């Protein structure tokens, strides 16, 4: 074999060949396959109401401020899913500590019956994405009394709803047990409307 090969031609041509193969053929073919066999997931696991309008995505959290509903986690972007993000506060950042203190105070005001030591940390901290759809089971339980009082639905019924919307650890091992706030509130909304 002769060891000489011109470089310019192969470099230019292989770059374009690879760009088309990996940048166009690959995503378009895979999108086609995904859309054909799993259109629901591929479109973003959207949730529809009876009129067929999109009310959210099963995977994306929503902002709940009405004390009648269960609240999700803090979000620096107020669950604006056209973007994503959080404040990236270091553990030593005074702004973060102040914000958490304010959240705790606001929480105590809304839930006077629950002592602060029953307030789990996930409810007063920012998630990474600002779109976290879940809270801990303890986080949902701590809100039952408030929601029961405002909606006049019994605590037992609300606890049932929480249980129905609790997802266990995957395969019993991976991740964490958690409550899906949006699904829980959709169920709650149905009960309120009855």
């Amino acid at each position: 074999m002769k060891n000489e090969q011109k470089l310019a031609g192969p470099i230019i041509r292989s770059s374009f060949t690879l760009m088309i193969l990996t940048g166009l053929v690959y995503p378009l073919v895979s999108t086609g396959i995904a859309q054909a066999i799993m259109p629901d997931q591929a479109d973003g696991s959207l949730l529809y109401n009876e009129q067929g309008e999109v009310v959210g995505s099963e995977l994306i959290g929503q902002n709940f401020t009405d004390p009648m509903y269960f609240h999700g986690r803090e979000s620096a972007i107020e669950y604006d899913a056209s973007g994503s993000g959080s404040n990236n506060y270091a553990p030593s950042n005074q702004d973060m500590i102040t914000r958490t203190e304010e959240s705790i105070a606001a929480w105590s005001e809304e839930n006077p019956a629950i002592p602060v030591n029953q307030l789990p940390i996930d409810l007063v901290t920012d998630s990474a994405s600002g779109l976290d759809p879940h809270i801990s089971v303890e986080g949902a339980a701590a809100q039952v009394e408030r929601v029961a009082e405002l909606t006049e639905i019994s605590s037992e019924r609300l606890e049932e709803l929480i249980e129905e919307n609790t997802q266990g650890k995957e395969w019993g091992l991976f991740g964490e047990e958690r409550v899906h706030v949006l699904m829980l509130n959709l169920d709650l909304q149905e009960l309120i409307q009855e």
Partner: protein
Amino acid sequence: MITTILSIFITLAVMVLIAKPSGIYLAKAFDYKKTRLDKVFGPFENLLFKLSGIKKVNQSWKQYALALILANGFMIVLVYLVFRLQGVLPLNPSGNPGMEPTLAFNTAISFMTNTNLQHYSGESGLSYMGQMIGILFMMFAAPGTALAVAIAFVRGLSGREIGNFFVDLFRAITRVLMPAALVTGLIFVALGVPQTLEPSITAETIEGTAQEIARGPVGTFLSIKELGNNGGGFFGVNSAHPFENPNAISNFIQILLMFLLPAALPFTYGKMVGNFKQGRVLFVSMLMVFIVFLSTALFYEYQGNPALNALGIDTEQGSMEGKEVRFGTGQSIFYALVTTATETGAVNTMHDTLTPIGGMLALSNMLLNTVFGGVGAGFINVMMYAMIAVFLSGLMVGRTPEFLGKKIEGREMKLIAITMLMQPLLILGASAAALYTPLGTAAISNSGFHGVSQVVYEYTSSAANNGSGFEGLGDATPYWNITTGIVMYLGRFFGLVTMLAVAGSLASKKLVPETVGTFRTDTPLFGVILVGTFFIVGALTFFPTLVLGPVAEYLTL
């Protein structure tokens, strides 16, 4: 807590089980002798070779290195133009404008060097076309390049011809990256990751407000992001976004994909040099360091943040600021350690918010850059440390050091020494400059000792081609775009070229017959010396910096 530890153990066990078969597959995939794989991939590859004008001829190490530098250089220019012009290119449903010059410069280098440092946010900074022919293209080309060089390097060590850069690059993509990415990408879609070219959709929420939800062709983007140790997110918050990592199963698969190639390469090496023990000792040494780092980080992360623990709330979950509930503390810090060990840079938690010691260990993975390391480049770096270990041992007993039957002499050690010095020079030099100028310090968002960590983390991540960040840092400025761009470029290509030179030099040497006096590099003893070398070199270089940043923050929190 116990189930979490068990789940981590299972993940690592699966990783260990698939490492060797994958390594053997890699060795076969790049074998120039006829194999059965040629029947499967041959016709398609020959078509691509014809389109690209590639002839299957062996190159010298110099030609190989030149082809690598020029090809990657041309791709950088090409993708730079895509980013600048995306505003007028098709497939831009959200109407995103072209990138400004320094950001496009930074992003093109970032993705070509397998770093995937992102100074833009995916949702608003890139069009679908930019994500596809810019980002996706490089997410294949960059790890393909590194994998090719790693194989060429081992060919040189084992006394074979170096090979042909273009053939190796294409084989890396057709035989390894693309098939695996396609299959796992579709699994991700089944788990809930979107895969659509439709624009974002607006939902009417329960409380009656409008919520715009960004989406895109994420599934098969995500798979190559992890498999190629790329790490650049489709969305701004990367794999913390529920669309980019919907549950703990997708999280589990992502961790396995990050590990796959870096864990397989030691066995590829063992197979190619005809002695699996040579590869196994590297693998076990790296795994041990990883487990020690991981256990320590888990311990501190579960302790939580003392400043928040003092507020009297229920902190049993650990430090939850910047973490997602579905992953909790355990899977978050596990992911953080895997992504920094494998130099992937994908994140499912915000590293800026990690406890000081947890963040320090993530940083240490990148400072050492030898705990697996990124696909190809990491392996080459580990081999460099193996040669340093042989050299140090040789000095102690007063023999000429040998590696795989080849004498390591002045020429090789000079190349290795300048490569080794390059990394601290880039990290510490650039960090010092940034901390000295207002252009650099203006970006710091967390004041005090953590600010030092933010700057050092950014340049370490750049030099090690990781790409994660302490993302509070306001780094989307021309100063940061240009300096990190340069650090990424040198951090990548300097070492690849010098180590190809080492391989070329060793390949031309005569084999020294093995005697009882030969220092063996396939024994546990060598593993211990190797790990010792990682720490002596790494700790001496970086310990003072760690004291100024994370350690000081830990002590004052």
